[in-house]
């Protein structure tokens, strides 16, 4: 039989993978051993990076894309999709990540931005991109640049869920308000959000973002996962929360169970028992660098 015509890198193919990740947990890992632990615990994908956000925060300095060698090691250790981070606006890092077959590229505020005015033109890539957002305008600007998945920024590396909750409520609250607005009001919404009018009109009509929305930034416990899923997130990213805790494997598994059964408090109570110490959290007033303020 002849080779069929195959279309790769289409919008459907790129957005489709985000659909497959819904209801799951994407875990930050720094080496192949952690990646195996994450996969065995039921992670739907892993984020390969050299330092988890809590360590990036502690060490300071410029945070860059991870060593491709280290990403390759993680890719060969697991069968679930592997994501990796590029700096905001650093399209050359993104090109490198695409060339080594990374399944999802996170244009991430956790790394030090490379461009103060421009995000990456993500339409140019066959690999799909996820981007962070703190409000609906930011989310729609990222989608207009080609992002296939939006996550709340939260405040990475703090183990504090308060910022992610604020971002989710802001994004989903504005979606609710826009879907009640009449067509004349949408012009003003587009202006206020600094977002393209056609995307604002689409949100108004469908009552949802054109791409999936996941939660990231500060999830440390099974109940945190349930909280953000009930608020309307469709999956969760857990960064420092697993491998900075006392006993990562059972905590990882418990967060997976909690993300599926987020509406059932009795299951949450069961899986939250005897997990050991969660990561030490940080209060917002005591942090110097707000990662969520990066990006525009």
């Amino acid at each position, binding site marked *: *039989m002849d*080779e*069929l*015509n*195959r*279309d*790769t*890198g*289409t919008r*459907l*193919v790129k957005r*489709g*993978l985000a*659909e*497959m*990740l*819904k*209801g*799951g947990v994407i875990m930050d890992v720094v080496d192949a051993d952690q990646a195996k632990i994450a*996969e*065995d615990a*039921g*992670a*739907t*994908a892993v984020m390969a990076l050299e330092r988890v956000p809590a360590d990036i925060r502690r060490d300071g300095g410029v945070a860059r894309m991870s060593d491709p060698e280290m990403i390759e090691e993680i890719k060969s250790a697991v*069968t*679930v*999709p592997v994501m990796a981070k590029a700096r905001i606006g650093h399209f050359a890092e993104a090109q490198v990540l*695409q060339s080594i*077959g990374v*399944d*999802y590229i996170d244009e991430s505020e956790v790394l030090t931005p490379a461009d103060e005015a421009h995000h990456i033109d993500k339409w140019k890539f*066959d*690999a*799909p991109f996820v981007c962070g957002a703190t409000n609906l305008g930011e989310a729609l600007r990222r989608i207009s640049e080609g992002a296939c998945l939006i996550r709340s920024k939260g405040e990475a590396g703090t183990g504090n869920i308060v910022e992610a909750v604020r971002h989710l409520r802001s994004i989903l609250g504005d979606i609710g308000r826009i879907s009640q607005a009449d067509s004349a009001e949408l012009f003003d919404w587009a202006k206020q959000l600094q977002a393209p009018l056609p995307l604002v009109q689409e949100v108004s009509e469908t009552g949802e973002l054109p791409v999936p929305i996941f939660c990231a930034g500060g999830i440390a416990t099974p109940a945190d996962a349930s909280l953000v899923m009930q608020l309307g997130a469709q999956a969760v990213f857990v960064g420092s929360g697993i491998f900075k805790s006392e006993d990562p494997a059972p905590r990882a598994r418990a967060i*997976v*169970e909690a*993300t*599926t*059964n987020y509406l*059932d408090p009795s299951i949450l109570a069961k899986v939250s028992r005897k997990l050991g110490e969660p990561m030490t959290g940080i209060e917002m007033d005591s942090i110097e660098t707000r990662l969520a303020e990066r990006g525009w």
Partner: protein
Amino acid sequence: MKVGVLALQGAFKLHVQALERLGVEAIEVRSLENFDASEALIIPGGESTTMSFLLESSGIFDSLQERSTDGMPVLGTCAGMILLSSKITDGRNDQKPLKLIDIEVRRNGYGRQIDSFESDLFIEGFKSSFRGVFIRAPLVENASEKVEVLAEVNGRPVMCRQDSVIVTSFHPELADDDRIHAEFLEMVSNS
């Protein structure tokens, strides 16, 4: 007719929407209780390594095996195909297949996300082509003579049926086309 959609993880909402468009009540199945209320089951795309352990911890695994063997219709897409198969290559080490259709599959057999693709398929009994969306899709490496192959890509099966179990390597829930769901529902009403 009440059709369950396994909602442990993955693209279950898209299947629920397809069922609703066809006028059928869909049940999101997260527990044995939900499963007991369903006359048939759709297993969506997602990560099979994640779903397989949630299938066991929820207690649905054994019950599904039993009821499907007794003739309950099941449709599995992508990860669903992997879970329903008789042998999985490149899965988690402790990943148990349901063994409800006699095929052997290789996870991500068509490559990584960068190799994911769309293509027009010719499906047995369909009058026109069907847009197949393959995302990190499983490759059917072997299908026994008990299995009816309903569509192929490059000589490899991408849609198969054995008794009341239908599986696809691709995602009919992503295509704007409900014909596969409609055919499955017809099988459910005849069962």
